Structures are given as structure tokens and as C-alpha cells.
């Protein structure tokens, strides 16, 4: 079986359309984020308390809210995704001042458990996560630092291996993938957690990975097709690697779909992020990375042509 027998699509022709489409999606997503006051931060970064409880009987969100009484004013009460029979509920409370002194960090968690017991809702606590402001700040700083340094490291490697216009193309594609992923997380109401950041960093590796395969091919073809214009070489390289790009993405996508479906509640955010990242990573490899590389190469090639013409003019 094979797909794409000798494909010859003109991807480069569509480069401006692709850039505009991406800009629209990212723009709209950022607008949503700004409207909601920033990207959706989970308890890892924003601090606060998250308790997941499982009830003996199916219990909806409303009885839990009633049981919480005055606490429910600030609480987010949500049935966990994929929880069968409505019996697993996540309760999140915001961070409070002065929580870190002494043993009071878990005051909110204790209050939730007590009020559920008092309301006659027998339950089992599946997990409790309490993050104070110091750690939240720390993780936020570390998360941003890790993402930036990872990008820097990858950029340095690409700069060593490829010429600058291609390096910039790969990095723009990677930033594009991170932004699109953040947009999708916002639109589908997934919060940024440590796991999600891990997934985003994995995607940066994956996205660059994909791009490098194409660029390696471009380099190989440049030796074989010296007379062809760069556009043609890049287009040919994208087409030659198209089957590999799509099949790899498809197979990895299948594996991650399994993770998304069967991996359980804890890994859902991570799996979702990887799914989005695989799709956008493939798209950006074909449409964004190569397009940027060509646009930048052309500009420098144009500049070179001008200086050469000037040199000739001088000689004459």
C-alpha cells in the first residue's frame, strides 16, 4: 500500500495563504486569551487547591456545590472528563493569602472534605494538590525559562547545521506550533499544568524534528539540482518527504490517540497537547517552515543580486 505516489503538489504557491490562515488562528486565539485575562493557568502555576473526589453513588456537580456552602462562591466544581456515571468531581479553590504559615496550607482542602462528609456524601479522595504562592511563582519562572532555553538550544543546533534563513524558518515554525497549541488549549478549556508544559517542550522537539527531515532533503537536492531555483528545490523536497511526514505523523498520532483515550484523567491534558502538536507540527513543516526559508532566502539572494549589479556597474 502507498499514499502519494510521486506527489507533485505546489505547496510553495500556497505559502501566503498558509501564513494568513495561521496568523488568523493565532490572532483570534490570543484575543480569546486576552479577553480571559491570560492563558488558562492550572494550580501548578497559579497556586491554590485542587481536590478530586469519587463518590459512592453518581453525584452531579450541583449537590457538591450545595454541600460546599459558602466555599462554593469561589470554587470551581467540575465533573472530571471521562468520568463514568458522574461520580468523580474536581473541586478547585483559589490561592489564599497567608496560607503558607504553619500547617494552614491545607485548611481549604480540609474544609472541603469536612463539608462533604457533613452533607452526607460518602466519598473517597482520589488526589489533593495544594500549591502555595512561593512554589507557584517558582514553577512559572522555571517553566518559562525551560521553554526559552530549550528553544535557544535547538536554535543554536540548527544555526550550526543549516544556513540562517533555514534556521529562522525552523524556529518560526516551532513558535507557530507552540502558539497554536496554546490557542487550542485555551479554546478547549485545558489548563496549563506541569504535564502540559512537558508536552509542549516535547512538541518543540518533534516539530523541529519534522522540519529537519525536509531541510536535510533540501540540502541533498541542492547538490543534485544546482540549476533549479530554490523554490523548486524546496517544493520537490517537501513532496519527496511528504509520504514520510504524513505517515509518521499518522502513526504517532495513533499512538497518542491511544494515550488520550486510555491514559486516564491525569494524562489527558498531556495527550491532548501532543495531539494538537502533532497536527500543527506536520502542517507547519509543510507550509510554514519552508515558506519562511524561501521568503528569507529570496530577500538575501535579491540583496546579493543588487550588490553584484552595482559591482558590475562600477567596473564598467
Amino acid at each position: 500500500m502507498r499514499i502519494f505516489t510521486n506527489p507533485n503538489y505546489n505547496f510553495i504557491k500556497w505559502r501566503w495563504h498558509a501564513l494568513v490562515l495561521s496568523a488568523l488562528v493565532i490572532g483570534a486565539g490570543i484575543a480569546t486569551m486576552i479577553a480571559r485575562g491570560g492563558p488558562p493557568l492550572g494550580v501548578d502555576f497559579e497556586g491554590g487547591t485542587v481536590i478530586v473526589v469519587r463518590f459512592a453513588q453518581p453525584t452531579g456537580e450541583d449537590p457538591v456545590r450545595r454541600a460546599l456552602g459558602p466555599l462554593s462562591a469561589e470554587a470551581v466544581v467540575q465533573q472530571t472528563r471521562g468520568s463514568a456515571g458522574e461520580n468523580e468531581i474536581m473541586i478547585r479553590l483559589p490561592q489564599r493569602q497567608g496560607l503558607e504559615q504553619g500547617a494552614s496550607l491545607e485548611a481549604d482542602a480540609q474544609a472541603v472534605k469536612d463539608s462533604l462528609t457533613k452533607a452526607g456524601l460518602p466519598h473517597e479522595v482520589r488526589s489533593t494538590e495544594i500549591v502555595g504562592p512561593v512554589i507557584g511563582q517558582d514553577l512559572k519562572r522555571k517553566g518559562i525559562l525551560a521553554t526559552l532555553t530549550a528553544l535557544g538550544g535547538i536554535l543554536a543546533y540548527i544555526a550550526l547545521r543549516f544556513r540562517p534563513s533555514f534556521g529562522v524558518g525552523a524556529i518560526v515554525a516551532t513558535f507557530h506550533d507552540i502558539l497554536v497549541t496554546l490557542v487550542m488549549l485555551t479554546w478547549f478549556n485545558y489548563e496549563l499544568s506541569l504535564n502540559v508544559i512537558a508536552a509542549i517542550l516535547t512538541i518543540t522537539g518533534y516539530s523541529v524534528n519534522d522540519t529537519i527531515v525536509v531541510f536535510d532533503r533540501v540540502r541533498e537536492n541542492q547538490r543534485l539540482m544546482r540549476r533549479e531555483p530554490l523554490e523548486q528545490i524546496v517544493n520537490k523536497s517537501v513532496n519527496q518527504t511528504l509520504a514520510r511526514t504524513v505517515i509518521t505523523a499518522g502513526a504517532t498520532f495513533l499512538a497518542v490517540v491511544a494515550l488520550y483515550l486510555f491514559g486516564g484523567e491525569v494524562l489527558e491534558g498531556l495527550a491532548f497537547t501532543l495531539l494538537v502538536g502533532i497536527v500543527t507540527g506536520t502542517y507547519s513543516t509543510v507550509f510554514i517552515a519552508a515558506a519562511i526559508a524561501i521568503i528569507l532566502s529570496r530577500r538575501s539572494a535579491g540583496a546579493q543580486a543588487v550588490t553584484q549589479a552595482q559591482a558590475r556597474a562600477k567596473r564598467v
Partner: protein
Amino acid sequence: MYKNLRWKLLIILGVTAWAVWSFTPPSTKVKLGLDLKGGVHLVLRVNTGDAVKVETDTAAEQLLEALKTAKVTVTASRPTSPTTFVVEGVPQASDQQFRTIADQQVNTAYEREPGVGGSYTFRMRQNIERTTREGAVTQAIQTIEQRVNPDGTAEAVVAPYGSAGDQIVVQLPGVSDIPRAKSLIRSMAQLQYKLVEGGPASDEKTLLSPHNGQLPADFEILPGVSGTRGDTSRVFYLVRKVAAITGSDLRNAKPSLDEFNQPAVSFTLKSDGVTKFTRVTEQNVGRQLAIVLDGQVRSAPVIEARIAQAEARITGSFSQQEAQDLSLVLRSGALPASLDYLEQREIGPTLGRDSINSGLTASAAGLALVTIFMFAYYKGAGFNAFVSIAINLVVLLGLMVSWGSVLTLPGIAGFILTIGMGVDSNVLIFERIREELAANKGARQAVAAGFDRVFITIVDTHLTSLIAAAFLFNFGTGPIRGFATTLMLGLLSNVFTAVFVSRALFELQLSRKPAGARLSI
């Protein structure tokens, strides 16, 4: 042709056998993370300022004591901040003598600055302050380690954390009674014997009335419970500030029973502790001696006679468990500073079990889906891909166990991504072989060219992924680290399986066919 094939196959067999051997049996060899096993993860901050303050308080008192002995009278020696204390009213005549005594007593740790009217400020030297703070964290780690893991058998982790220098991470896998664990960790366990100067009384005013309502400088008021059994009402004692005996004089502590057969804690004193105890009891027959634990008077027995034995007892309304815990924390020694909780994560045992199950299901489903896909798309070569990915997973698990790394839930996700990476490399190679075949090359040349041409690309892609994973490892704690480790080791084993194993499999198939035979790909 392929004369090295036999050796290649032997190496593959050897590596696989080594990997299987290193994680057999998995139930004991594969270490599960907190998120799979259930348990609690805590981040604590040691308030190192406490330790610095104690140091300064002690220095101020020591100096005053030495001055008293030398008959140099000053009006006061009192701390003004955690790192400074002042001595006021040094007489002009004994200024030289004061300086000599101060140099002997505190010069190594404090800088002396003269002020006006015979006053001096002593400031803790910065290197001393730093070592005091560092020492407090180290001592807190050792103390907590002894409390949560007294026999050294549990898989508890107590370690420095973060870059702030004053944080500690405590991980207790499989612990179910978390409130008890937390109170064990937090308990200051500061045991002191203090002479009672007044009380018990139901409020502070009554205690101060003999002193004209003023609290004398070397006294303090402490809360406690009344000595009568079964009476839990709150009372107050007026006691001497300076402790007669402290926890550092303890040799051992163990749970026992009191004369009413109620749980109590018995302890023995070190020899200089005994000397001190004997002296205090000898000089204060008929007075009360308060037993103070973490600033609370637990009981205040009357000294009947001089006591010259090493054994003593704390009674009070304990449960059996409380008596046991108290003796444990007394044995481990006092914490050098108070602790704050910064982060607490608990994973219930059922969630851990469910996570293992869903992780295994997801891995199996992922592998199955990918395998079906590869067979459908590459037919015979799909088998090679399956074998090389399966060996990849086996080697990865072997590497993880030998590396001593812990399997976490994100780590399982790392396994699934490793399947993806394995597919990626194989597809890259297979597509190239197809291209070479399409260019009318023979099967053997096509396979050789496919692997050779793609090798540099595989190195490139793996290196960039390794860079991302390395930064992830640096950033992460616990589960994320597990994820990063899995990814890195997975990348390493994938280079081996995709390039070496897969190629050997192709060569094995080709060597059994006549030259010029077609390849199923």
C-alpha cells in the same frame, strides 16, 4: 555478503537478553513513582531565620553570663534583630576588661561596633550567618529523615529542593495516614525543663499581680494543661526563661506507661544532663519544675527531693500512638527552625492503581494500532518495524531500571512517544528504500542506500529531541523528570534499534533469498 550478520544478530540478542535480565522480575525491579504508587509529596521551607535568632539570643546571654562572673556590671545585653544584639551601660572604668571578655566570648561569630555612652553593637558575621542557615537546613533534613524513616527501610525521600537554598522536598510513597506524617515532620520537639515561679493560674493577670503587673525580664508565661488527670482546662504558668534542662541533654526516649497505666514517654539523660538535673533538684526542693514541650507546659511536678538518676518521664493525656510519635520525635532531636508547607500533593492508592492500569492499556493499544498500521502499509517490512520497536521498548525499560530511574505516569507517556519515535525512524528509512527501489536499484543496494542516506537525518532529529528533553529534565521535578528521562533513554535506544536492529533484520531476510529477489515493503 553480509559476513558480519551473525555477529550483529548476536549483539542484538545479547542486548535484549541483558535488558530483560535487568528488569526481571518487574514487580521488584521496576521502581514506581509516587503518582503510580500513591503517597504524599511535600515541599517545606525551613525558616532559617529562627536558627540565626537562637544563635544571637544565646550569644547575648552567654556574654552577659561571662560579664557577671567577671563582676563587670552592664545595664543590658539584648538582641535587637535576628543577627544583632547590643550591650548597654558598660562602665568607663572596665571598658578594657569588657572588650577582652567580649573578644573571648563572641569575637569569632560577631563583629563589635562601639556606640555612644558605653554601648556596643554586635553584628553576626556574614559567613557565620550563612553557615548557620545552611546548617539549619542540613540538620532539618537529617531530623526529618529520622522521623519519617526511623528504620531506614521505607522508600522515603528527604532532600534539598529548588534554588532558594531553604527548601526541602519530602516524598513518602505508600503512606496513607498523611496528617500523622505531617505532624511528625513538623513537630519542633523542643523539650525543656523550666523552674516554675508562679501558677498554675487561669489567666495571666493573676500570675503577674505579685510583680506589680509587670513581667520580669528573665521570666515568661507559658500555657499548659492543669496537672489534674482528666481536667483539660487551659492554665498558665510563670516560669524562668532559661531552661534548666533541654532536649540536647536527652540520650533516648521511648513509650512507656505511667503509674495509672496510661501511655507516657520515658527518657534518659546524658551524663552532663544528669549532673545539671541533680543540681537543679538539689537547690529547688519543694518547688515545681515545668516540663515544657514546644512552648506548652505538659506537667509541672513538685520536686520532692534531690534526684540523681538518668531516667525521667513525661505524662499527660496521650494516646498510645501519640506516646509513640512523641518518643520518636524526641529521639530524632529538635528541629533547628520552624517549617512552613509550600506544596502538598497527595495521590490516593486507588488513583495510583487506576493510573497503572490506564497507562498499560494505553501503551498496549498504542503499540497495537501502530503495528496494524505498519503491517498494512509496509507489509513484510512492517514486521521489521514491529520487532525493532518492541526491542526498543524492552531496551528502554532495561536502561531505566539500570539507570535507577523511577517509572512515573508521564514516564509511561514517554514510552508511548518512544513508540512514535521508533515508527518515525523506521518510516524514514522505509520510504527511502522505496524511493531507491523506484529508481531501479536492486533490493540489497536499495536497503544499503536507504540506511546510509537517512542516518544523518536520524542523528539530527534525535539530537534536537535530546536537547529539548535535557532542558525538560533540568526544569522538572518528580513525574516530569521521569518523562524526560524516559524520552532521553528512549532516544538512545531508538538509535540502536532503528539503525542497527532494523538493518540487521533486512539483511537477514535478504541473505535467505536469492540475489535479485524482490523486497516486501
